[in-house]
């Protein structure tokens, strides 16, 4: 019998914080890892949801999918998804996704009417109950349920029950504790003898809080004010949209300046500084580990128990691995590989990870592309290999505080060659023309009142 599949994506879930929670023996995450295979060194293809999804659900690198960002680009014709494979194997789809997912043309038709939700829903504030209720209802067999939950997406709101030091040092850790609590509830309704459960993240995030000897700083946005701001913004007349967008960037910049003033005398490490100073409107994008390293946990029917694989793997490998366990095959080309052999062979070959940053939607951003090995991280400007070049020695400098690119030109070249090797199959890097067309059309359609 084919197993049912529960696929849970926790938006902005960092691997380090997931692993930290797993250290506690009474945590649900600890229990889940004991019952499955855990990959703490999983590299997402991008630091933003849309590009990360594009890669995860096609098992291809993002630049081969046609999806470039949230700017109305969608999956290219002829690009198959992992849902096609599941559909061919008789799976019925159920889903809970944020509304923006409708635009990318990536997802199958879900059987449940309530599959799209407003942006701020998470398993800790309603989605968990929906998932449980759906699992307990009469579902078509075999089912594949995809839930993308926004609990950790900025702004993070910790419920009063968990907003306490015993649940974590900062808002992020406390929210992970709250998620852990809800995972227990959900898993309690899943039969692991007949179901495969996957838990992963689409990308990581900066944690905008820090505790020093003398001071505690918390720059986490307050969700209530953010939701209110979004609602007010959406009610603004269309003709005010350009003003509204501009105002957003002005306010963000003002907020950044204020933060810089507070932080300048604190002698913080670069990774601490960049986390605290980061904002939604940042023009310069990066792909530091805190933004792209996510957990990948798989358990249930057919899956071995109590294995932690410390080798670097990628989110693009998740579906090939799942399908290998299920005995399903891809009928199209993919970039991901099955990790089944990696699970049993501790000395298996290094898997290179392609990484890129997700562009801003409302204005141009400085984006980067790069690759990561288990030892080095290399990234540079998306359009110019000589600009914004970064190289980090991950063994000596795990927090990526010291860019060593200038003194290691040979290594930079070696990594660039590896990157070029990956990119040679890219149809057209950046797909700029398509983006520009889409933006212009959107502008014209807005004038006509259609958007």
């Amino acid at each position, binding site marked *: 019998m084919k197993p049912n599949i529960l696929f849970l994506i926790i938006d902005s879930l960092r691997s380090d914080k997931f692993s930290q929670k797993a250290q506690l023996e009474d945590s649900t995450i600890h229990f889940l890892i004991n019952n499955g295979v855990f990959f703490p060194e999983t590299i997402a293809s991008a630091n933003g949801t849309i590009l990360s999804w594009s890669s995860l659900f096609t098992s291809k690198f993002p630049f081969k999918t046609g999806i470039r960002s949230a700017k109305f680009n969608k999956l290219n014709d002829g690009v198959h998804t992992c849902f096609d494979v599941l559909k061919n194997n008789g799976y019925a789809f159920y889903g809970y996704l944020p509304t923006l997912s*409708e635009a990318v043309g990536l997802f199958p*038709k879900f059987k449940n009417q309530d599959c799209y939700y407003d942006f701020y829903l998470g398993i800790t504030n309603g989605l968990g109950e929906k998932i449980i209720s759906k699992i307990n209802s009469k579902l078509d067999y075999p089912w594949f349920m995809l839930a993308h939950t926004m609990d950790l997406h900025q702004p993070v709101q910790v419920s009063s029950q968990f907003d306490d030091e015993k649940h974590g040092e900062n808002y992020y850790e406390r929210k992970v504790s709250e998620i852990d609590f809800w995972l227990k509830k959900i898993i309690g309704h899943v039969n692991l003898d007949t179901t495969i459960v996957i838990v992963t993240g689409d990308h990581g995030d900066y944690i905008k809080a820090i505790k020093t000897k003398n001071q505690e700083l918390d720059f986490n946005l307050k969700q209530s004010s953010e939701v209110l701001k979004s609602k007010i913004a959406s009610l603004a007349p*269309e003709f005010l949209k350009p003003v509204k967008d501009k105002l957003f960037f002005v306010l963000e910049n003002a907020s950044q300046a204020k933060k810089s003033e507070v932080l300048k005398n604190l002698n913080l490490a670069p990774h601490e500084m960049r986390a605290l100073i980061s904002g939604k409107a940042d023009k310069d994008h990066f792909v530091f580990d805190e933004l792209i390293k996510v957990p990948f946990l798989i358990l249930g029917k057919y899956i071995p128990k109590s294995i932690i694989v410390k080798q670097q793997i990628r989110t693009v490998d998740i579906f090939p691995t799942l399908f290998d366990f299920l005995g399903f095959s891809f009928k199209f080309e993919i970039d991901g590989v099955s990790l089944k052999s990696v699970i049993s062979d501790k000395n298996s070959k290094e898997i290179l990870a392609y990484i890129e940053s997700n562009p801003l939607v409302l204005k141009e951003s400085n984006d980067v592309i790069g690759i990561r090995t288990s030892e080095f991280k290399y990234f540079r400007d998306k359009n110019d290999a000589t600009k914004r070049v970064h190289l980090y020695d991950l063994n000596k400098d795990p927090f990526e505080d010291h860019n060593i690119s200038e003194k290691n030109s040979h290594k930079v070249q070696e990594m660039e060659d590896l990157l070029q090797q990956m990119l040679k199959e890219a149809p057209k890097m950046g797909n700029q023309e398509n983006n520009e*067309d889409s933006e212009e*059309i959107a502008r*014209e*359609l807005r*004038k006509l*009142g*259609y958007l």
Partner: protein
Amino acid sequence: MLNLIFITMDGARVDHIISGKNYNNIIKKSTFFSRVIAYAPYTIGAMHALFSGTYGTKTGVNSYWSNVNFKKDKYKTLAKYLQDEGYVTYGDVINKLVLPPIGFDELIIHDEINDDLTERHIKLLDKFNKVSKDGKKFFLYLHYSNIHTGIMQEVLKKYDNFSKEYFENRQKNEQFYDDLFEEADEYLGTIMNYIEKLELNKDTLIVIVSDHGISVGEKFGERAYGVFCYDYTLTSTAIFSHQNIPTTHIESQVRSIDVLPTILEMLRIKTDTNYERFQGDSLIPFIEGKGIPKIAFSQSGNPLKSGKPPKEPNVWAVRTDEWKFIKNTHDGTEELYSLINDPREENNVIYDFPQKASELRMELDRISSNI
């Protein structure tokens, strides 16, 4: 050879056209097709099909988003035909997305909110009267957009496709549309009178089309157009006016893709074999009483709850004079309507007439697979 003045009355409903005072004065002196089935119930899709005589499935323009995909090297447009014949070609349009620009010497965008279109278009008539007097042939395209403007301001921006307030006030919606149409009818009367005053009508073929209809609240889920494929938006009209063209009203179904071949035949311009053949056919046989109705194919893009039109069509339809078959690819449902018994398309009889459904489903597959 005749000049061509082509007027698009954006969003003019057929039920209003047939009772419009000035419209009627024109219809009395023209060939009037009152059931021209649009390829798409929104201007971008509708006008690209009309200007190329070919469905968007072939030309690449099958959604609000796809005007950039128009295959100009494969499909020759009305403007390009006339430009190649030496016409001075000029268009005054609502927006750069609505027409394929190829073939226009000038394609100017008007400000639909602030411009007085009557005044603006009268100036253009003066300008092209001079062009004509200089011995040059011209093609003048005029887009009357004020019905759209009113709908945009008072419907599109105030309600969504599921606003109860809109659908519960049908009478108010109808009154609002009546007022918009009355202004449109006035515009058309003024323009036609001016054309006659300048005596341009003597050596000019005048074509007046509506590109699609507009909802006044008929079906919940569509507050204006471009969502479903029902007759209140798909039915457009075409008027051909010149002293040599018979006065007749043709009620039989024709297709918007037939308009281009008809104009070319009226202007005695041969089709260019360097381009793909039109899917449309000349309507001259209908004017001569020998026309054979053909199945019309349409596509629309239901935004569902996303708030923006999809990039690919997700509502497909075929229509005959008697039946309409609709396939909603976004949810896999199908609809069949007996248009004679149920012109408002209120009773889906897909399960009552499985053979008819099967026949039309095959037709839809046949047309849509001919990409």
